[in-house]
């Protein structure tokens, strides 16, 4: 065992804008959302950002883990929608949660997989004895150029994990591996408000190549077979890619669907796959094995094999569940979405 997930928490804003409305507004065929596998996406309110959502998820993660801020030795904040371009988000969340001052604390950026890398860094810290517990947060108020294809999926959400001693954890990370290349499939330049992407180029050479490579590395190193896993969760930029990548790995759809959240809430970027993992942890039984593979453009993937322990039910009960956050929803029109996310050109600073 490398390390364990001692606790986790999630946050999904309750407001949703429908993909059909986005299609109608921007002149797409209303059949497009179905092709993308998205029904609607979660929208954060005006006073929310990656920090506030990450704080909520982290607060629940600490509660589930049964630890206080005093027990956390490192805080990693994975995001591509930092409220400050320069100034860590991690320190804000850490102070707001009462995390002690003697700690590591930094923001990580690797498109949608920074939080996944944060977990791998944490495994190293815990195994190496530099930290007893770390807090890893993945949180994004994802940006999309209004009217771009990304507008159908770019949503808001957060997830957080307390990584620590596997013997104290309801879920143990038995193996993990990362696979990274330089692939410009999606990016956002400095001073640019919205990301650009290579559209079809984001698929085969980017998403599929990295996820499949990381997954195969993990299987090779552990000797595990796809059939050894009870659940599989992959980064989910839309509702279709995860099912396609599962098929390529020979993993049946029913093992993927429990962790597939993007159709209902959109792509939460750094939360995405890990939010799916949180949902699976809330539904899994002791002894279940979960395959998790993240993906971040640029590009890279982290693959994890996670085994659920006996204390899972008790730990689940200590916090709000992802499935409840998905079903607790309020529809808003695109105009309110635009107001919430600051898409109107307004005079500010007056």
């Amino acid at each position, binding site marked *: 065992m490398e390390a364990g997930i001692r606790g986790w928490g999630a946050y999904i804003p309750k407001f949703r804008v429908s993909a059909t409305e986005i299609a109608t507004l921007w002149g797409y065929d209303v059949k497009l959302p179905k092709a993308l596998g998205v029904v609607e996406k979660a929208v954060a309110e005006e*006073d929310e950002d990656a920090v506030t959502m990450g704080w909520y998820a982290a607060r629940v993660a600490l509660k589930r883990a049964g630890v206080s801020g005093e027990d956390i030795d490192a805080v990693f904040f994975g995001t591509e929608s930092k409220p400050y371009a320069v100034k860590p988000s991690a320190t804000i969340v850490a102070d*707001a949660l009462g995390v002690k001052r003697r700690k590591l604390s930094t923001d990580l950026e690797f498109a949608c997989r920074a939080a996944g890398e944060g977990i791998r860094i944490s495994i190293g810290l815990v195994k190496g004895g530099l930290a007893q517990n770390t807090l890893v947060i993945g949180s994004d108020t994802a940006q999309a150029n209004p009217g771009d294809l990304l507008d159908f999926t770019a949503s808001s959400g957060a997830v957080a994990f307390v990584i620590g001693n596997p013997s104290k954890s309801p879920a143990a990370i038995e193996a993990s591996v990362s696979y990274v290349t330089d692939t410009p499939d999606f990016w956002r330049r400095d001073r640019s408000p919205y990301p650009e992407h290579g559209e079809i180029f984001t698929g085969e050479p980017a998403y599929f190549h990295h996820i499949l490579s990381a997954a195969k590395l993990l299987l090779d190193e552990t000797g595990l077979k796809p059939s050894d896993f009870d659940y599989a969760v992959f980064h989910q930029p839309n509702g279709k890619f995860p099912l396609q990548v599962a098929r390529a790995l020979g993993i049946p759809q029913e093992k993927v669907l429990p962790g597939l959240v993007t159709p209902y809430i959109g792509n939460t970027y750094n939360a995405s796959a890990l939010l799916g993992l949180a949902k699976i942890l809330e539904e899994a039984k002791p002894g279940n094995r979960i395959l998790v593979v993240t993906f971040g453009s640029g590009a890279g993937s982290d693959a994890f094999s996670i085994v659920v322990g006996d204390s899972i039910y008790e730990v689940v009960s200590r916090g709000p569940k992802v499935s409840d956050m998905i079903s607790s929803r*309020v529809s808003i029109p695109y105009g309110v979405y635009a107001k919430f996310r600051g898409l109107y050109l307004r005079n*500010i*600073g*007056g």
Partner: protein
Amino acid sequence: MKLSPSQFWRIRESQYRLIITECGSCGRKSVFKRSVCPFCGSSNVKHVESEGFGKVLDVTKVMYRWNSSDERPPLLVGVVELDEGVRVVGEIVGVGDNEEVKEGTRVEAVLRRYASDDPYGVIYYGIKFKPIKTA
């Protein structure tokens, strides 16, 4: 620069967390980290952190326009009684147009933005309240 970095930094503990001041002299409790009890003036105080749950005592929907860049009316502003028996005033967020917040609504503390010195200045974060979905 319209928002001071240090003014908020100084008081961030009381803004980021629900700190309760308990008076050892009069026995009364008040919100925020205070060195003096606001009821009796005693310095014999200690501080504890609220669990962050409570109920709405009263709430009003505010359309008064009183700011510019941070303006996002309508706002719900209410008085919340924390489970620790302490009152605090603040904004209630996460409420849809057709949802009702009223006396007795259960709420939990959430971290939100208070103010943002756009486009270049600091961001203030602090505690607001969000209704808890009770099935």
